[in-house]
């Protein structure tokens, strides 16, 4: 048996078991050192995930448990502000749900509208760059950089900029008033519209990039095959392009919806603190202003579970095997 064949045998040997070993004589000539090296190799993978595992344990798993514990704390009679005692006070959950269910629902509503808007804006963008400009490398590169460019400025700054764009005296508002789309005394700043605009804008790259990635792999010959088989442009999109880009759409919608539901900066900067309050703002104020740690923790936990439930439903309904 040639050296090459022997090597191959060693590589596949693990699955072959004892019979394989006995038949193939060269296996018997492996030195103890080689055997040990093989064994080390097979355990290598576990060692490699160790740093990540420790990191997640310290900075995700433990905090989640600590959050869960805090959410059940109780405030002993006569305690100072911010002083709580460990307990199992499940009523914390009922109390915050009763007080803030409207903000919770509103958060998901805003996030949903922003996700749909980002999809409607981001998909055509991704399609243009990934499919239409597939062979125009320079233009494609420039547009990709433009999609990512907002990341180079701070999140807060970009959101602040929207405040200017939608301000009462701004061009946008006066233009909308001029064409009577907005009443004379109407305003955009400090409205739900402004918050959703901010959310859509801020999470747009998270929608666009995954869709771009899946459309970039789209074989355009399939589109030709589809038109050859009596599909017009719309049917081709619905039957071929969209289904094949679903992994990207799934990833993009999740990457937009999840952080958008928990976001509080857009609502804080672009909202009005009354009918635009999102759950993130509530958690923020319960934690840092009211110093109600159990309440804030309970709300955080509710938000987490609600997102998990919604995402599970969504993935079950629209999910593709390729993604999960």
């Amino acid at each position, binding site marked *: 048996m040639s050296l090459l064949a022997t090597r191959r045998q060693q590589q596949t040997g693990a699955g072959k078991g004892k019979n394989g070993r006995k038949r193939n004589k060269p296996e018997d000539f492996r030195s103890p050192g080689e055997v040990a090296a093989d064994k080390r190799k097979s355990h290598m993978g576990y060692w490699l995930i160790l740093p990540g595992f420790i990191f997640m344990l310290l900075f995700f798993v433990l905090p989640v448990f600590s959050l869960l514990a805090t959410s059940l704390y109780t405030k002993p009679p006569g305690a100072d502000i911010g002083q709580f005692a460990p307990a199992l006070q499940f009523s914390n959950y009922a109390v915050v749900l009763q007080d803030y269910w409207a903000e919770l629902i509103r958060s998901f509503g805003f996030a949903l509208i922003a996700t749909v808007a980002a999809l409607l804006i981001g998909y055509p963008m991704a399609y243009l760059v990934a499919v239409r400009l597939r062979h125009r490398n320079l233009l494609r590169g420039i547009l990709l950089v433009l999609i990512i460019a907002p990341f180079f400025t701070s999140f807060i700054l970009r959101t602040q900029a929207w405040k200017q764009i939608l301000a009462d005296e701004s061009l946008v508002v006066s233009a909308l008033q001029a064409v009577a789309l907005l009443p004379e005394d109407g305003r955009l700043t400090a409205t739900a519209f402004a918050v959703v605009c901010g959310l859509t804008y801020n999470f747009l790259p998270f929608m666009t990039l995954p869709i771009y990635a899946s459309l970039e792999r789209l074989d355009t010959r*399939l589109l*030709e*095959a*589809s*038109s*050859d*088989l009596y*599909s017009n442009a719309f049917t081709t999109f619905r*039957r071929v392009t969209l289904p094949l880009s679903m992994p990207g759409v799934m990833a993009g919608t999740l990457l937009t919806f999840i952080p958008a539901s928990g976001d509080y900066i857009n609502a804080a900067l672009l909202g009005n603190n009354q009918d635009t309050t999102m759950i993130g703002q509530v958690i923020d104020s319960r934690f840092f202003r009211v110093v109600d740690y159990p309440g804030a923790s309970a709300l955080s936990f509710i938000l987490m579970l609600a997102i998990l439930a919604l995402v599970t439903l969504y993935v079950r309904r629209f999910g593709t095997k390729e993604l999960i």
Partner: protein
Amino acid sequence: MVLTDAARDSRMETSEDRGADLRLSSITKRFDDFVAVDNLDLTVPAGSFFALLGPSGCGKTTTLRMVAGLERPTSGSISIGGQDVTKTSAYERPVNTVFQSYALFPHMSVFDNVVFGLKRRKVKDAAAQAKAVLELVELSHLGARRPAQLSGGQQQRVALARAIVNHPAVLLLDEPLGALDMKLRRQMQGELKKIQMDVGLTFIHVTHDQEEAMTMADTVAVMNAGRVEQMGAPRDLYDLPKTPFVANFLGKSNLVAGTITEDLGDTVALNAGGNRIMVHKSRTTSTVGSVLVGIRPEKLQILHASDAPAGPNQLRGRVSDVSFTGVSTEYLVDIPGIGALGVFSQNRGQDSAERGDEVVLVWDTAHTFGLAGTEDALSGIEEAAVL
């Protein structure tokens, strides 16, 4: 393979029962500066198996794509069954394509792939027809699989089924067997031909494989540099090529330059490096001045110099190379004043010549063909070699 009742019934419903004539009139396609197809005229009769044969870059695939509607001609018109379709989109044409890459939809089952076209046209009993065609290509047991789970040959059949299920007026095949290995390719050639006869559609088959084109097609058009060099039945093309490109691309040819010296009525005699060669007037494109005469290697008989009979068409020379291939022996013979000629000799127990032997090559005048002397005798050799 027999066409099932469902498939047959559905054929009755279509207006184009035997496919339809396809006519290309002065089609030109330019990509920037490059002329891919140059003022092409082509008529493909209904029900025929037509092959567009040529080296890569000769414009055959571009021609096919223009018929499919995937490419717009720069000028000229295309009509199918008498109807001008030049300005219509791909999805409006009664044409289906078997793509070189198959282009099967990876997110659909084999059955959904096949039924796709029928559903788009809202055909009744689409499912039954798709099943019938899957049976025709012997894949009915794999309908639920995804294309990625099939072998290359099976994918090829799905691509074929997906196209023929629609009973197009013209079926376009773009190097459909190119991705298959040699053995499977030969097998599929036979099956394709059989299916074509069963369903009776007009097939246009694009290929660079001359053997494939000759085996399968009724009519072969040899394309070169955006033009049709010659068109005809495979046997006619091989027997009487009209250009050096066809002579060299379709099989091998010995092309010898000469000058016509005598007119003998039915034939002309010419002088090639001091040798006298006869050509029938009906088999030469030019009967005066300089010509290229061609003889196929298998038409040449190799004899010992002493056995030479009397008469014309005798070339004396020396064997410079011998290669034995089992069923045949191929010789290279150096002829003074002409150069090296190839001889292909069936091994039927005759004495074989050795390297260095003095030999004489003889052949029947009926096998000589004459081409215009102004043409390049080497045209098509390189194209045939790279395949």
